[in-house]
């Protein structure tokens, strides 16, 4: 570490500090900035040239007086200390203690940027996680090591859903518990408190590592926060053999902070002012989930992404969907009708479900039941739409059956209590209650064995 301080800042705006007359500073290195009130700020070099560097200041550049700003280069990248003591602790976006307790001391220090996992070192996630929520387990199952975001909107119960998943997630056939990494970017005090109380109430607080950047904390810090949190998660998963569930909320605030800095840097914008590298940047975060060959632990990622104006084509949810292994989409319409969790079934998807369900993992009919429910519900929604145009009286008996299916499906299958923890078998049995509203011939996505075994023939069959 160099003790020399430079007082050669030439400009400061938008969280960026341009400093001249500096030695050759490594790209990505940390810097300490001391302002005129002798307060320390943390920075990182994001462009380096002979004699000149650009520093991103995590606490922001507000009210810096360039004449009285001293910069010191630490000759090291942004790192955090790692030890099992992380659990139960609360940190800020760059890994400093936020709970008034002493910093973690450990010989294990890692660069928060990590290095890309070699695809040849990965192993495919296949283990079904039961969340106890029918719309997820039955239709969009989560698998250990998956990255599955919740696409939401302001005022929708994404936090309650995320908390319910964290509370109920478990494997079907194993005694299992998850270590939890909770990463909050730009969330309100109320939301942060909600999660803390949730963790406390369910008695998992000692298993949680929290990284918190609140809505009134400096936005630039949000750029480091998910990286810091995932470095901790990787340590727990791949050094300590834990299965880690990471909640990242809210990635929209992260991306907004990225846009802010990109704009200040003068990067060429692509859609809606977000820089062209938003995709790669998000991927660097999301792709840190998964499983690695010959390692016991895993990282399952549950990012929350609020869709600005409920628009799923907005660059943040859009690029997220291109990277993650599916998405759980929440619907304002269902929410307004009092359905919880308001999972919008059609656009929701779990890409890894196929390998986590079926005979060896849940039940043999599961994949076909899911496909059949999707087909029926899609058709039912079309019919509902038709009914709203031409009137229900115009519909055939067959169409009316679809309408009553849609209602029952929403009221009984999607809708459930916030404390209700349904086993996957309960979920599948419930599915058959609904499928049995149709005669066997109408169910061509399940096979004849399924029908014989599970269809409540009789009245309709």
């Amino acid at each position, binding site marked *: 570490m160099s003790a020399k301080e430079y007082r050669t800042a030439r400009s400061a705006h938008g969280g960026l500090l341009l400093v001249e007359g500096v030695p*050759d*500073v*490594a*790209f*990505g290195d940390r810097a300490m900035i001391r302002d005129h009130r002798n307060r320390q700020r943390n920075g990182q070099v994001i*462009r*380096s*040239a*002979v004699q000149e560097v650009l520093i991103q200041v995590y606490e922001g550049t507000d009210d810096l007086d360039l004449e009285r700003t001293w910069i010191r280069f630490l000759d090291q*990248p942004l790192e955090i200390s790692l030890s099992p003591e992380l659990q139960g602790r609360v940190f800020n976006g760059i890994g400093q203690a936020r709970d008034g307790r002493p910093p973690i001391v450990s010989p294990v220090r890692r*660069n928060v*940027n*990590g*290095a*890309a*996992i*070699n*695809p*040849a*070192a990965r*192993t*495919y*996630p296949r283990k079904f996680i039961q969340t106890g929520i029918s719309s997820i387990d039955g239709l969009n199952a989560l698998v250990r090591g998956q990255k599955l975001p919740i696409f939401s909107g302001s005022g929708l119960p994404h936090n309650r859903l995320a908390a319910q998943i964290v509370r109920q997630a478990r494997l079907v056939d194993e005694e299992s518990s998850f270590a939890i990494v909770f990463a909050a970017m730009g969330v309100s005090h109320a939301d942060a408190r909600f999660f803390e109380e949730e963790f406390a109430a369910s008695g998992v607080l000692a298993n949680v590592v929290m990284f918190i950047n609140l809505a009134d904390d400096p936005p630039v810090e949000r750029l480091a926060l998910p990286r810091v949190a995932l470095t901790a998660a990787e340590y727990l998963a791949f050094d300590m053999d834990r299965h880690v569930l990471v909640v990242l909320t809210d990635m929209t605030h992260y991306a907004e902070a990225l846009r802010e800095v990109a704009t200040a840097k003068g*990067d*060429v914008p*692509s*859609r809606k002012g977000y820089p*062209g*590298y938003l*995709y*790669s940047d998000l991927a660097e975060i*999301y*792709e840190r989930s*998964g499983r690695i*060959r010959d390692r016991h632990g895993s990282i399952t990622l549950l990012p929350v992404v609020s869709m600005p104006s409920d628009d799923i*084509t907005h660059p943040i949810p*859009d*690029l997220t*969907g291109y*990277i993650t292994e*599916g*998405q759980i989409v929440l619907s304002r319409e269902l929410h307004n009708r009092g359905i919880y969790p308001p999972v919008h079934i*059609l*656009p929701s998807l779990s*890409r890894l479900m196929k390998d986590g369900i079926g005979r060896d993992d849940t039940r043999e009919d599961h*994949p076909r039941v899911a*496909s059949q429910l999707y*087909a029926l519900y*899609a*058709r039912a929604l079309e019919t509902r739409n*038709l009914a709203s*145009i*031409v009137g229900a009286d115009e*519909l*055939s008996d067959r*169409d009316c059956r679809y309408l009553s299916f849609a209602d029952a499906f929403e009221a009984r299958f999607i809708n459930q209590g916030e404390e209700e923890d349904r086993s996957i078998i309960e979920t599948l049995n419930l599915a058959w209650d609904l499928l049995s509203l149709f005669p*066997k011939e*109408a169910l*061509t996505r399940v*096979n004849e064995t399924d029908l014989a075994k599970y269809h409540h023939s009789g009245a309709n069959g």
Partner: protein
Amino acid sequence: MSDHPERGTIRAINGPIITIRLPGVRIGEQVRVGHLGLIGEAIALQGDEAVIQAYESTEGVRPGEPAAGLGWPLSVELGPGLIGGIFDGVQRPLQEICESAGDHIPRGLTPPALNREKLWHFVPDPTLRLGSLLTAGTHLGSVQESARIEHRILLPPDHQGELLELAPEGDYRLEDPIGRLRSADGRSHKLKLFQRWPVRTPRPYRQRHPSAEPLITGQRIMDTFFPMAKGGKAAVPGPFGAGKTVVQHQIARWSNADVVIFVGCGERGNELVDVLETFPQLQDPHTGRSLMERTLLIANTSNMPVVAREASIYVGITIAEYYRDQGYDVVMLADSTSRWAEALREVSGRLGQMPVEDGYPAYLASRLAAVYERAGQIETLSGMRGSVSLIGTVSPPGGDFSEPVTAHTKEIIQTFWALSKELADARHYPAIDWVSSFSDHIAVAAEWWKREVGSNWAQRRAKALALLARDAELSRIVNLVGPEALSDAQRWELESALLIKEALLQQSALDPIDTFSSPEKQYLLLKMVLLIYQGGADLIELGVPVQELMELPLLARARRAKQRFSSTETEQLRELNEEIIQAFEEVRMEYAKFKEHRQ
């Protein structure tokens, strides 16, 4: 490229872009930068400075660190040992790196792409005579690379001359000489089992041929409705989750290609793992061999450095051309070309080039066209036939097909498999939308189907498409005035279109039987749905109410047929078709009796 012993120094680092001072460096030259020895490529010269795009993360690099030109452009190693492997965007062997360096990819590593220790059994071409004059591309001998692939060792395209020596049959390492050649200038050249080729230069061939037959993918909507020709260019655009990657994986699994190259360009790591873990267990339905014996992977996942993403497509296509030159039909799958285009955009943005649309540089369209142009059916330098079929996915932001990459790609390709969010949302897979998809290869395909499968392919295909078009039209009416407004005949048309969708177009990649459909099976299923349509239409003409037809149990049986009968159980499908004819005949008779009775 020049040799320039001068060492340069780094002047500035801006993400993946490094500015260096290095006299004599040329555009396109490989450069080693920094104490870590990161590899990059010179992409622009500005005064006495050169701009380098680095294939690896530049974190920790400082101004003042050294830089040196390597004297050659980005090249790949071509020889036995490619098949079954996984390489990164600049052809570093990921399996070996994993064994030597662990779970994460360290920087500054440059292991050779191909294993130098492994012995390959070389059998020289018995027709070659010492002293004879060999032209570029001459077959020198062969190595059995995998149980499926006979690797033909060819004289590199930039070599010709008198054969001075040729090794006898035996086991050789890649670096062992297997022959000697004297070129026209009198110099003698060692011949080896492998060669190098610069990736941005297409490998030469004798001439192009028009595509002569379809690439059979085993996917009904593709083969039967929107076929692609061997040597063709195809695109699969679609929003996230619509099924682009599954389409490509299905082609990688089931198409009748000799060699498959899958380039994971800026996509998920787990999708490559999926291939690595499942392909060795799967059988190529055309040869019965393990799929991994014909497959190789290029991986630049979304979290790997952006610049190597741009390179990965060229690395893939060069390897594809190399197997083409051995007389093989090669399929190259690029998932996703949008990420490749974004890598271009990223670099051009950092160079301060003027963006034209959505931040993309003006040369986007020409670069895209040049890449796709490397596909084709050709006659090799030694007179064999070979082909490269290139299939790229496109990931339009927000699913909007009017964005630049989709729009330009559409101008270039010959087969367009457009994926629809609506279909995917309803779990209609593959979500290939029959309205906006197209193929320029119908005539070539029709010829082939007629010759190989059955005489009525073109007519039946047209008939089914016409029914689907009617469906769209009638559905619009229903949405305006309700289903009651339709006649029985029209309702039967709707019902038949639904049958086409469910019994024919929908094909689950996850179903062990339905995942692959032989051309014969496709043809019989197509026949089946049309038989039902026609049978029903005739009865309605006679006055049978549509309601009665909709309750026929054979409709459910028809819908299950695709999953019930495998590609080889064509006899059972024929029987089913016979039963369908029978069943309609029975209804007709019964109805006739009923009418007689009433009169």
